[in-house]
């Protein structure tokens, strides 16, 4: 046999099966308004929005090495922009959600320029300062209710769609759509030239830099895009909640701690990790939530144990055993299958 018999491929049997199953699953999920109850749909919407947040945090921490504990800055910013743009700007809620994402990118630019001066762990705390600045600033805006917050007026909610069930379906589809949008963006970004650069930076920053990759600019782009999509998700979260206050909008626990636990438990630095992590997180929450604070402590302990004993998370354990890859990112060499050679 000679070398030319070997071929290089990106896809694999498991990835093809996953793609087909994923497509079927997506169709089933899109059809949820016809088979799921109202409470289930709300729960699933929340799950999709957490999935979006987790995938975005994973892109930053797992691929770009930007560990942020301040993503609540953009969740809250997006939520507040939805309220401000619909109440004072008179925009349709869906237009406001898109504009909130764009404004999130815009405000992320100066924030990134500042906090990118901090390295590593200090960067993490720097992101938290930015989130606090946002929280305290929005608490000063009396038109948006100041520290006590405000509700989305009924007229704006009704402008979303006519009829309660139509509104609920629409907001469900928006949540599902945002999760699909985020995962697809992350997937195609990582397969692109820039994604390859990002993966190279993750694996060895020094080597990547010496090959001519502009590290600062690549990380900057990831931060700004993540901020935009996080703001979009934030706007959707508060479209579901219909009420916003600085403490809820910029909560470290809700929008960062949970998201970090999801990614760590599921498997950081993989696309599949956040998906599995979100499922585990909601499963635990629905069964243990009655325990209140104990539940959060359990979650903290689980995250620490996973980080120390299985740093690649649940998906890492699965992959080590079964050599699966549902979202093909890397290339693999395939041996020729002819029977003559041994």
């Amino acid at each position: 046999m000679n070398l030319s018999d070997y071929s290089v491929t990106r896809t694999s049997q498991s990835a093809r099966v996953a793609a087909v199953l994923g497509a079927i699953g997506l169709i089933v999920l899109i059809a949820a308004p016809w088979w799921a109850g109202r409470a289930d749909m709300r729960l699933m919407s929340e799950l999709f929005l957490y999935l979006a947040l987790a995938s975005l945090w994973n892109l930053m921490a797992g691929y770009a090495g930007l560990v942020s504990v301040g993503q609540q800055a953009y969740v809250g910013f997006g939520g507040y922009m939805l309220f401000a743009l619909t109440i004072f700007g008179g925009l349709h809620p869906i237009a406001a959600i898109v504009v909130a994402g764009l404004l999130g990118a815009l405000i992320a630019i100066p924030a990134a320029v500042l906090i990118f001066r901090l390295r590593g762990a200090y960067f993490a705390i720097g992101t938290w300062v930015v989130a606090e600045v946002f929280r305290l600033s929005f608490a000063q805006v009396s038109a948006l209710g100041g520290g006590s917050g405000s509700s989305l007026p009924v007229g704006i909610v009704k402008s979303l769609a006519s009829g309660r069930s139509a509104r609920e379906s629409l907001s469900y589809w928006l949540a599902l759509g945002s999760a699909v949008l985020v995962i697809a963006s992350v997937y195609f970004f990582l397969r692109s030239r820039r994604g390859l650069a990002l993966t190279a930076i993750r694996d060895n920053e020094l080597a990547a830099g010496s090959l001519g990759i502009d590290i600062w600019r690549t990380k900057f782009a990831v931060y700004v895009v993540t901020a935009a999509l996080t703001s979009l998700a934030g706007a959707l979260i508060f479209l579901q909640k219909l009420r916003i206050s600085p403490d809820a909008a910029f909560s470290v626990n809700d929008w960062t701690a949970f998201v970090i636990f999801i990614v760590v438990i599921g498997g950081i630095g993989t696309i599949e990790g956040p998906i599995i992590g979100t499922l585990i997180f909601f499963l635990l929450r629905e069964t243990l939530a009655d325990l209140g604070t104990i539940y959060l402590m359990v979650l903290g302990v689980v995250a620490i144990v996973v980080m120390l004993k299985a740093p690649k998370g649940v998906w890492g354990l699965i992959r080590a055993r079964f050599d699966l890859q549902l979202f093909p990112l890397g290339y693999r060499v395939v041996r020729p299958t002819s029977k003559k050679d041994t």
Partner: protein
Amino acid sequence: MDWLNALIQGTLLGGLYALFAAGLSLIFGVMRLVNIAHGDLIVLAAYLGLVVTSAIGVHPILAMALVVPAMTLIGYALQRGLLNQTLGDDLLPPLLVTFGLSVILQNGLLEGFSADPQKLSAPGLETASVALGSISLGVLPLLTFGIAVAVIWGLQWTFYKTSLGRAFRAVSDNQDIAQLMGLNKRHIFGLAMALALAVTAVAGILLGLRTSFDPSSGGGRLIFGFEAVIIGGLGNLWGTLAGGVILGVAQTIGAKIDPGWQVLSGHIAFLVILAIRPQGLFPRMSG
């Protein structure tokens, strides 16, 4: 005169922030670890102070005699039992483990003490003041500032004049060679965390005397300490004191303009310094 008063009060407040920051600065200097749970450990110390004062009825300042050794032991155990395992080239494990620890501490305190704000009470000390011309200075803020200066002087002395300090500096410079010279870096790291949490204990008691605290106040304390470290410049303890003072003054002046602006103006001062002098005012090492 009002402005001068705000300036002086802010300076004294800065002493407390420097105490928040000193432990953070120490462990970063020795082992490049940034402890996200640092603020929650400060709050834990305040709660320990509360338990001691209410159990045996001593003055909070005297309660330090029990809280400081307790936090020292917790620090050594925490470092050897958990945090040493996270240290390495990868940035993620220490960050995420201390983040998990922060959530556990916060919710543990919530479970044990409820969300009600608590305060350490020291009748007499809280309200006592001395008059300096037309400005009256609280005895507690003065005491806090004095303790902060003493603690930083003590840390500085430990770092540069004792064999323990030599060990700290050795593992900070090169862990492997320090290990070859017969230092057990795991033990040294344990001692560094023990010392850091001893300082944290002092900070926690003084925090509890000054303001009310609840299980969720840790994050804010971490941020103030962190800002003081960055403003002062990495690796310089006196710089950290200066950073704390700058932060404190920015806050009291902000509060003078509008009470809602107190914390926000501290953050803005931090961001301005980050923009014009990212390495801090008096850096001794690079991050």
